[in-house]
């Protein structure tokens, strides 16, 4: 049984595929999308998030850390990532959740057990979605979770960038009912600029999956300054129009919900100029794509379907 590194499991997930789903977020991604709102999933290793505003100043982390990664000065808590070995001992003692470990090793079997917890809610259209990060960075783990879920009769979906050789993608086809794939832009040069990766494999693999008859939803995160022009969306739609198994094309307006996370991870904040298109602009883009005969949806923005909470602040 394979194991893998996950960031978290989201029950009652309603944006990552149809119906009520459980989404498993895997850690690690080979792309570096400049607007990424899940930066905690980027690195392929466990790491520590720091939320200074939650710190109560008990200094337990400083006391127990054997590597000197935590220190308190007149400016408050200081955390040195260079010294930290991510043993997690400080996290276990930080009841205020000012220190949070992101990245947990799990077996596929234990993940499936979590997926089954909400089995009663999945009918008729819901199920499990593997997301990330990039699931194919942990391909065996991903396939194992999906295969076992399928054996339980649960609908399976995967959210992947498909920027992989076909031989990596192909095993997924046997265990996935729905592929959720981003096309950020058809312009390969721009794609490399904004994500660090070419879009060629993504586009090739989409054609291959379509030829196999796999159901596909394609999505474009729409970011002003990156891909918000009608001709850019039109180009994506032109590519999608011949696909026979395209379920729908979704436009996902950029949102800045992930920006606070960067600081907690010691990363630079994304480009501050990024913003979402206005609703009217989005409607125009949707019309542009729909003009190619596609079913186009504009995602509802921040809807999580969950209570409006961020993690328990413990206030």
């Amino acid at each position, binding site marked *: 049984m394979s194991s893998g590194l996950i960031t978290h499991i*989201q029950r009652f997930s309603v944006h990552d595929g149809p119906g009520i789903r459980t989404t498993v977020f895997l850690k690690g991604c080979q792309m570096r999308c400049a607007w990424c709102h899940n930066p905690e999933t980027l690195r392929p290793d466990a790491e520590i998030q720091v939320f200074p505003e939650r710190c109560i100043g008990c200094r337990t982390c400083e006391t127990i850390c054997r590597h000197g990664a935590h220190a308190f000065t007149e400016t408050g808590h200081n955390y040195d990532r260079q010294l930290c070995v991510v043993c997690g001992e400080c996290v276990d003692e930080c*009841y205020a959740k000012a220190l949070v470990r992101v990245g947990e090793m799990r077996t596929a079997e234990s993940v499936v057990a979590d997926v089954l917890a909400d089995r*009663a*809610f999945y009918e008729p259209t819901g199920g499990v979605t593997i997301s990330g990060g990039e699931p194919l960075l942990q391909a065996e783990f991903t396939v194992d979770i999906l295969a076992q879920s399928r054996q339980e009769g649960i609908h399976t979906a995967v959210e992947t960038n498909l920027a992989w050789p076909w031989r990596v993608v192909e095993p997924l086809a046997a265990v996935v009912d729905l592929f959720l794939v981003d096309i950020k832009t058809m312009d390969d040069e721009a794609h490399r600029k904004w994500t660090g990766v070419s879009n060629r494999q993504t586009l090739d693999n989409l054609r291959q999956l379509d030829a196999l008859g796999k159901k596909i939803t394609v999505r474009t995160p729409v970011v002003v300054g990156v891909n918000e022009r009608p001709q850019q969306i039109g180009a994506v739609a032109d590519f999608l129009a011949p696909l026979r198994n395209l379920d729908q094309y979704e436009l996902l307006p950029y949102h800045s919900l992930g920006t606070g996370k960067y600081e907690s991870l010691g990363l630079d904040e994304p480009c501050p100029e990024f913003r979402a298109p206005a609703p009217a602009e989005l409607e125009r883009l949707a019309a542009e794509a729909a003009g190619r005969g596609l079913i186009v949806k504009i995602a*509802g923005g921040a809807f999580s379907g969950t209570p409006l909470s961020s993690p*328990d602040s413990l206030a």
Partner: protein
Amino acid sequence: MIDSVCEQTDYASRLEHLRRRKEVQTREKLDRQGPMDEDDYGMVLPPADFCWKPKANHPNGSFYGLEGWCDNFCDLLEHHPVYVDPMDALAGRYMVLLNRLRECKWPPQYDYDELKPEHARYGIISGIGNDAHFAPDYQIGLELGWGGLLAKVRKFRDEHGPEKAAFFDAEERVILAIQGWITRTVEAIETAAEQEMNPVLLDNLREMAEVNRRLIEEPPRTLREACQWIAWFNMVSRIYNRDGAGGQLDELLRPYYERDRQEGRIDDEDAIFLLACLLLNDPHYYQLGGPAPDGRDQTSELSFLILEAGHRLKSTCNLTIRVHDGLDPRLLRKGVECLIEDRKAWPRFSGDKALVEGFMRNGYPAELARRRIAVGCHWMALPGLEYTMNDTVKINVAKVLMVAFDEMIQKDSAPSMECLWQRFEDHLRRAVLCVARGIDLQLDHQHENEPELVLNLLTHGPIERGLNVTNGGVNLYNMCVDGAALANAADSLAALEYRVEQQGRVTWQDLADCLEGNYPGVDGERTRLMMRTAPHYGEGDSLGDQWALKVSRLFTQLVTEQPTPGGRRMIPGWFSWADTLRLGEQLGATPDGRRAGEPIAHGANPRPGFRDDGAATALVKAIAAVQPGYGNTAPVQLELDPCIAQDEAAVDIVSRLITTHFELGGTLFNVNIVDADQILAAHKDPSLYPDLVVRVTGFTAYFANLSPRFRQLVVDRLIRGA
């Protein structure tokens, strides 16, 4: 009170006028009376110069018994202002709650001083002296009318003779007073009609006068008359003692609607307007759909029209859809669409399967269980057949747990979870017995305190027997006993087991000291957070979930294992109503990391922020698992992000949550769909959001009319989840 002529008289414009007028009236209530942390009730303020005070018949300044209540009610109705709005299809609003004008709500000669120490010790709300909280059968009134009810009272007075004459005399005077109030209203309508220039409104007023003139004596024949009759009953019942129980509204009104339609008297637009006026008149608790006694679905065209009326009205509303296997799926869908589109926190959804099977566990047949419907804040009742004290009796189980904890620390040389549980069981048993004795006291003397002179009229038995409903007037006494603070008790037990016994992170005594000092200083705060981050209820298969189940089973066992000393059956549920603040104020710091005085968790809900992902599915499963299972409810109170309104699939998703909860054994489902930014802005300046409606607990309310503390409670729940 007469409105000026308005040019727009189509139904949409009239409803808009009525809705805005209600918002103004709501604002006036806030300005004159201050915040009200409870139901909207549909009450409007009397004119500023209205001054009426009840007459005491007891040295303590209060009034009691048949005479006290009858005299005051009749005098109040004689002076109660009349209300006519030419835009409204229905006449009347009520402006006074008589039962809130008493100095003391229980006659001192029946003191229960011996119970009070335990009430304080265990955080018990005894229900002693509380009125209403059972359901009338409107069918009785719709069939007889006020004249028929009067004849019925006189008939049975003659049969019973002088021994019970006082009871019947009081009932007779109550009806005559009601007829007098309606008569005065008719005169006001006629006066208004004389002044009305708009032909549409003039026609409306003429018909309104005709309807009401007839209803003084006769039973209703048309949908308009039936709506008006129900409105009158609701108003007088509210005036008497704030009763808010409704009925199976679609079935009650269906014959009138069908007859009107067959005879071409109205079309569906007329019906919707009439129904909207009824819902505006008072947000009573009505059930729609659900099984008839034989199991057949009661959904009718009228069920949909009532939902549509509420949808167009867009105000506070307390409609409940009874979800059962045979329910027309379109009704559920329409209800969820209203919930999502209007964001007024209605309708609610009631889980038939667990409710019927649960009530049958008390020894009742399925046919009777199906007639027990959702007509109160969280509660179920057999209309006109049982007395219940629903939602008036509560035990704060977290307070009981802390009594056990403190006692263990003081007396046990080797504290342990086993010792704690044993002491908790002992004290909870004592708390239940104390509650049971209070229920007996209520049933023995409530008729001498506050006879139900209005609700008796629509109950099967009191008039026939000459006995108040609380005193042998009905055959069925199923007394509601709710637990409160389930999550606080369960999380405390889980935290103690995990941190103290399993991990040894803190000793029993050190924790006790910390609780005593309310988690003082940085070390105390660290301990508090340590306890708070222990496994807790709602996470799913956690230690907290196990303890919640164990606490609920114990509570259920103790409430059901034997009747009250007086032989009355008790039925358990979990519900805190709007008492989360009050019950929290009485409670010191608890081992779940809750500070002294903070609110307790809501009803059967896990605490806010119970999971990092706040998953609604986890909430729904957790609450389904802790149902007591005897036919009363332990509701879900769910808060959802409004962006679902932009998502076509949202109706499917919310429907699935609801139906799965009921498949898993759930009993009642309340949902708020509220925008976080909007609720925060409204909290800052409520006056900017006069139409913002939230489901506080079992009831909906205008957010602007809640007190700052209560708004904060709602905000915390909405923002931090569940």
